């Protein structure tokens, strides 16, 4: 997606550069691409609107237009804005987790829709508070709705060694909450962690119940637990929970999935509250402080690409990398370089497996397969290059029709295949020229498109 956005923006800016003037239409087209990217990542529409208003000026400003790689500049601007919003001003205070500075027992209330992950999160949070902050925690389930919900939390409590408030059949959530606080006080607990039943924000009765629980225990923290896969509805639920019940923060769950996570931005923007933690797995220790950068990258589909580049960098032999850097600096890229890149790619072939471990990998995997990272093809392409003379490799311009025919015959391939390779080479050489202007750092960051030339093998 990051690639798609960069490419699409690239097209827009190319057109614009050819004409030399910036029309209203060009600006609109560039902004539209950003908008679509955000919507595809599930950022809610009203939030997208505000966001666009905020980046508009900058995204089509002088700096971008004069830049060699305007598309990448724009992506960076968008990314930085996203990260800034997600980070927020409060988060520094919360860098290490939850503010629990109140007279104990401090009540912490978890709220959210059905199936958002409240119960698992309650256990994770309890474990974290117990182990990292040495807090004495009491786990409480107010979920008298879902079958076996209370039992679920009881079992989890046992697993992590945190006491669970015994269930009294027939007791109402507000009564349980009051009893929990009283019990927490007499037992000398630091934190009383209250899990609630999942509720739809349009369910009047259940929202009143949540507000009543809140009024009864006056929690120091009321946290909305929301699924990272949430779509446009994030706006409605964030509004309703913050207006009807009141929130102090957000916990984003299932970040280990491959959703783009645009809901994070929606929730943050609508509630104005910080995202304090994110759930990254099913196990009770899979809870991490929120990483704004990571989520911003993900919304744009960049995070994964960056980690992929990191992995790729490990695979590429140091020597080769240095050679490539030198080439880069000289701005020259010949077929010998391409050949060594192909070899590297082949080494990365085993990455398919590793890839499936990364979040958001579906897209990249597709890219990889679309880019035909196929051993056989890579080998054929290497064969083509090795059938060339040294002079041809250094100076690909020499490759006229008859030479191409000779090479095809020599490598056991076909002329169209040779042509395809040459096209791929030209695309890459072009990209390398641009990279040169970015410098080696730029390569480290944007190396991937160089390795996977914009779908070259599909030509």
């Amino acid at each position, binding site marked *: 997606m990051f690639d798609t956005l960069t490419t699409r923006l690239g097209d827009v800016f190319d057109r614009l550069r050819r004409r030399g003037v910036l029309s209203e239409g060009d600006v609109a087209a560039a902004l539209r691409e950003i908008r679509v990217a955000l919507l595809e990542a599930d950022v809610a529409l009203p939030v997208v609107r505000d966001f666009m208003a905020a980046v508009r000026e900058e995204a089509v400003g002088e700096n971008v237009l004069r830049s060699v790689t305007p598309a990448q500049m724009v992506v960076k601007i968008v990314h930085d804005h996203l990260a800034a919003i997600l980070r927020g001003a409060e988060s520094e205070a919360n860098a290490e987790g939850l503010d629990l500075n109140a007279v104990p027992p401090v009540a912490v209330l978890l709220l959210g829709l059905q*199936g958002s992950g409240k119960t698992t999160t309650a256990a994770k949070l309890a474990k974290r508070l117990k182990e990292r902050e040495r807090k004495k925690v009491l786990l409480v389930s107010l979920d008298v709705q879902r079958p076996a919900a209370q039992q679920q939390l009881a079992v989890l409590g046992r697993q992590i060694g945190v006491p669970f408030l015994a269930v009294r059949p027939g007791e109402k959530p507000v009564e349980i909450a009051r009893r929990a606080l009283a019990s927490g006080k007499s037992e000398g607990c630091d934190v009383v962690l209250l899990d609630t039943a999942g509720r739809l924000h349009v369910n009047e009765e259940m929202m009143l119940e949540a507000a009543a629980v809140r009024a009864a225990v006056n929690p120091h923290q009321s946290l909305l637990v929301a699924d990272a*896969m*949430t779509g446009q509805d994030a706006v409605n639920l964030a509004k309703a929970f913050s207006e009807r019940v009141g929130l102090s923060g957000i916990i984003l769950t299932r970040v280990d999935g491959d959703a783009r996570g645009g809901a994070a931005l929606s929730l943050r923007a609508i509630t104005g509250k910080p995202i304090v933690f994110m759930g990254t797995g099913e196990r009770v220790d899979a809870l991490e402080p929120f990483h704004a950068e990571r989520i911003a990258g993900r919304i744009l589909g960049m995070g994964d690409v960056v980690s992929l580049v990191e992995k790729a960098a490990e695979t590429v032999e140091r020597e080769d990398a240095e050679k490539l850097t030198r080439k880069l600096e000289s701005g020259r890229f010949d077929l010998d370089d391409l050949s060594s890149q192909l070899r590297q790619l082949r080494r990365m072939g085993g990455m398919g497996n590793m890839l499936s471990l990364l979040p958001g990998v579906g897209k990249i995997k597709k890219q990889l397969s679309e880019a035909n990272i196929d051993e056989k093809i890579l080998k054929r392409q290497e064969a083509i290059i090795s059938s060339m003379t040294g002079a041809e490799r250094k100076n690909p311009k020499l490759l006229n029709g008859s030479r191409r025919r000779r090479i095809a015959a020599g490598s056991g391939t076909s002329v169209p295949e040779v042509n395809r390779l040459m096209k791929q080479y030209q695309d890459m050489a072009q990209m390398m020229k641009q990279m040169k202007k970015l410098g080696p750092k730029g390569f480290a960051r944007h190396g991937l498109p160089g390795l996977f030339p914009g779908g070259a093998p599909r030509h």
Partner: protein
Amino acid sequence: MRFWRRSAEEPEEPEEPEAPQEALEPRAAPAEGWFGRLKAGLAKSSARLNEGLNRIFTRRRLDEAALSELEELLIASDMGVRVAEEVAASLRRTRFNQEVAPEEVRAALAAEVARLVEPVSRPLVIDRERRPFVILVVGVNGSGKTTTIAKLARHYRDEGRRVVLAAGDTFRAAAVEQLEIWGARTGCPVIARGEGADAAGLAYDALLEAQKEGADILLIDTAGRLHNKAALMGELQKIVRVLKKLDAAAPHSVLLVLDATTGQNAHAQAEAFREMVGVTGIVMTKLDGTAKGGVLVSLAEKYGIPIHALGVGESAEDLRPFEAQSFAQNLVGLEP
């Protein structure tokens, strides 16, 4: 069967008066006509869309601005940008620059949405030749699998079938107990092993047992799993493999349960589950909230997986057949 395919001669039951009342007594609302319930569930979804349509189109020319606002309303239903653009474009072709009333736009919009979901609007057909008919229920965590099983169990029990439930979620704490409670409520035996048991082994035993007992339908619950976790998806494939040892045609149906609140990730879910375990049908849950389920429209276009039913609440009665016309009409706020 009637439940799944509303026959034309079936008299329409009186509709419930208004949605707000529904909201006041949500959990144990008495059974009404399925359509009334679907409407009540969808009413909240359509209320906002409706409001927006009225604002946009009351006495207005269908110009570019109006079309792009319309497109945004569709996007807000999670339909996805591309499909929303297509739907808006089809209105542009036919109605551009005409003076249009909101009703008209809504009808055209509904027709377009219905056209897109019509091909996938297919009931879950239980083949009586296959006994027990094995239904494997899959989906990401918390999507509503177990509750959907309870709803299906209630429905088939009411039809007089012998239904057996298999507690295949051996991972999540108290998942077995949850299904056992539903089994008791719906009067269906539950086959279970302890937490941490091998899910495939349990599924195998359950099918064996259901065969022995001469059950008509076996509903197998599975642990929620994110579709990008290779190992967990592999476990699911293993369940399918062992079922085939007892019945080469099993599972006869693989239901993917999707949460209506989910955005575009529903596509990745559908793709992965389909690829790994051959999803044969979709049930979408939680349509009783404000989530509009528009993603079903783009899913229909992309994968063509049959959509069987919608979940519109938390009790065992809250399952509705998926019906293209009424889904579309309700979505855009039209009386069917």
